[in-house]
């Protein structure tokens, strides 16, 4: 209550100040944007470059980009700033933070900002699968920007050595197991494949369940399907890769060091974020390939990454300016440039229709794998109480992979936890 009053007062004071100064100089709208970059370096410079270009085109808008660590840091930072009355108008945050942000009453739906028919059409210009994590309760809350999917990286040299066709990556679970067996060294020094199970186990699992034609949650974010038979089956398959088929090490596989394992030739196949593409391309000393994830009942992968959100405590002018910035950052040319420089996806079909990206795909076809896979993609696990629900699933996956629980037991328990957490939201 007090916070609201204080913020209200501050907004009023700011507005009064702005009105006063408007008569003196040209009114400049100032935007503060939080942006999740864990380390400085390349990504920061690219975003800074985009922001500078925007300000050149729009001299009446000033943008301060604040780099706030990883997705978790960015969310904490932005929410804390809002609570303490510091200005923040928009942010790129984890696409799955949507329910938390709605619950905190922190963001405003884009439907409430767009005015013209052209703007409304713009909302539909993105890949629909990328919009899934940004839409709920009939409204659009997040605009896709820094988005990725999971793809399969494979070592073509090893495929050749094992007598496999390097141009045809395994396309089904059975083929995957078969290839894995040929690629795994008997003494355990080299593995057929690795799927990381620390950091973001639920994300990888989202791919396996989708391939088994099962989603993990409903669109309202209040129900999970952790104990569905197809979910259990998918987890059983993941576990079997290690214990039954012996094509993957048993136990959990570290997310952070997996790329090193792949580059060192310790595994012939890895499932990882498209965000690794540039780094793998730069560092691989062997011939590598990138392919869509295989299918069981169908192909599938969750999307991942960050969306643009606009905060609720903003003036109409600020919202308009923020919209301008978001539209600038996501227009086809920018999205194409962004995708080529970072490895993230172009967020709209129009981005892939630009000449620059088409030329790039011609020289480096793997840049288009993520796009081609979008057709089969689904939303990333995201619910109310998302942190806890996610942890329940993460723990269940790790418990199964390390052999301390059966898939049925672990997933039933995870579902019970999720039900308890989500009951209040139904």
């Amino acid at each position, binding site marked *: 209550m007090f916070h609201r009053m204080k913020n209200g007062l501050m907004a009023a004071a700011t507005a009064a100040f702005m009105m006063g100064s408007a008569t003196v100089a040209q009114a400049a709208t100032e935007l503060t944007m939080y942006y999740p970059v864990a*380390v*400085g370096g390349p990504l920061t410079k690219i975003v800074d470059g985009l922001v500078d270009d925007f300000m050149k085109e729009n001299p009446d808008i000033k943008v301060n980009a604040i*780099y706030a660590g990883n997705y978790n840091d960015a969310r904490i*930072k932005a929410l804390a700033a809002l609570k*303490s009355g510091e200005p923040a108008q928009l942010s790129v945050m984890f696409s799955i933070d949507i329910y938390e942000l709605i619950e905190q009453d922190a963001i405003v739906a884009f439907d409430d900002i767009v005015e013209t028919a052209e703007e409304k059409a713009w909302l539909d210009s993105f890949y629909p699968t990328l919009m899934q994590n940004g839409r709920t309760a009939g409204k659009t809350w997040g605009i896709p920007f820094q988005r990725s999917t999971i793809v399969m990286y494979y070592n073509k040299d090893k495929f050749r050595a094992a007598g496999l066709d390097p141009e045809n990556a395994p396309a089904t679970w059975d083929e995957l197991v078969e290839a894995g067996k040929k690629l795994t060294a008997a003494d355990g020094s080299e593995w057929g494949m690795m799927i990381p199970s620390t950091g973001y186990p639920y994300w990888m699992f989202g791919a396996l369940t989708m391939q088994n034609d099962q989603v993990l949650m409903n669109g309202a974010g209040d129900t999970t399907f952790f104990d569905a038979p197809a979910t259990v089956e998918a987890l059983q398959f993941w576990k079997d890769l290690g214990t039954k088929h012996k094509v993957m090490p048993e136990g959990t596989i570290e997310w*952070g060091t997996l790329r090193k394992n792949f580059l060192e030739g310790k595994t012939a196949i890895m499932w990882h*974020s498209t965000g690794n593409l540039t780094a793998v391309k730069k560092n691989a000393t062997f011939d590598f390939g990138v392919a869509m994830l295989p299918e069981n009942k169908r192909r599938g992968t969750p999307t991942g990454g960050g969306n643009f959100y606009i905060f609720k405590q903003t003036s109409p002018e600020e919202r308009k300016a923020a919209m301008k910035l978001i539209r600038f950052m996501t227009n086809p040319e920018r999205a194409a440039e962004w995708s080529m420089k970072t490895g993230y996806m172009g967020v709209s079909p129009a981005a892939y229709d630009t000449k620059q990206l088409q030329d790039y795909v011609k020289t480096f076809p793997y840049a288009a794998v993520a796009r081609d896979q979008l057709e089969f993609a689904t939303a990333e696990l995201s619910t109310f109480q998302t942190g806890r629900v996610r942890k329940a699933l993460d723990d269940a996956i790790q418990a199964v992979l390390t052999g301390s629980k059966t898939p049925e037991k672990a997933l039933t328990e995870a579902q019970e936890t999720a039900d308890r957490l989500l009951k209040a939201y139904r």
Partner: protein
Amino acid sequence: MTALDRLSRPLEITAAWALALLWASPLLYAFWAAFHGPEYAVNFDLAAPLTLENFREALAQAPFLRYGFNTFLLVTLLLAGQFILCTLAAYAFARFRFYGSDVAFALVLVQLMVTPEILIVENYRTLAGLSLVDSISGIALPYMASAFGIFLLRQAFKSTPQELVDAARLEGCGVFGVLRRVYIPLAKPTYLAYGLVSVSHHWNNFLWPLVITNSVETRPLTVGLGIFGAPESGADWSIISAATLLSVAPLLIAFLLFQRQFVQSFMHAGIK
């Protein structure tokens, strides 16, 4: 000495050295990885060429110099604050038997057990209320009134000979004059000891700074390194090693130069 003992002496020396080698190996490995190309990070080849590329790369990928500067600011600010606050409080406890001093002292000692990192949730809230989230003073503030510092200095002040105090009084020194002319100079070893312990503790502190900082401008080395080492998509091994060495270098070099003082300070502070 028994015959067995005579035999055991060389054995003991060997054991001491073996243990030392074992203890030094993780750091030696970090040096190896940092100064060689990534292709040698997990492959040992004595003929491998040395390189500074990893350091250049680490510095290009994350603003470690800025982090280092933040850490430097942090420990300086903290140490100055601790010295002033702890000196005053210790002086009060050592020389003025005021109402409630025993209870107050017991309450001070509570902080020896309940250190600020345990209260991250509430302290974050307090600092948010003060608008000090994401500031260097925000990192420092909860640690400034250090129970440990008060305790150490109180001990030192208590052992100051009364004659010297009386002599200073006769020369016309007031309350603060005595503190400045007699107590503080005599407690120099304690200040040095406490200072070294405090600096190395806060140089290395992680959890609280992680919670309270969010930007490059305030983040200390440990937090910068923590974020760098656990990236979303996996950073390069050799570069992480280089970054790790960059982060520990100032303290490590200081330690190697002033090894004796460090060890003695830790002893001094530890015995209480």
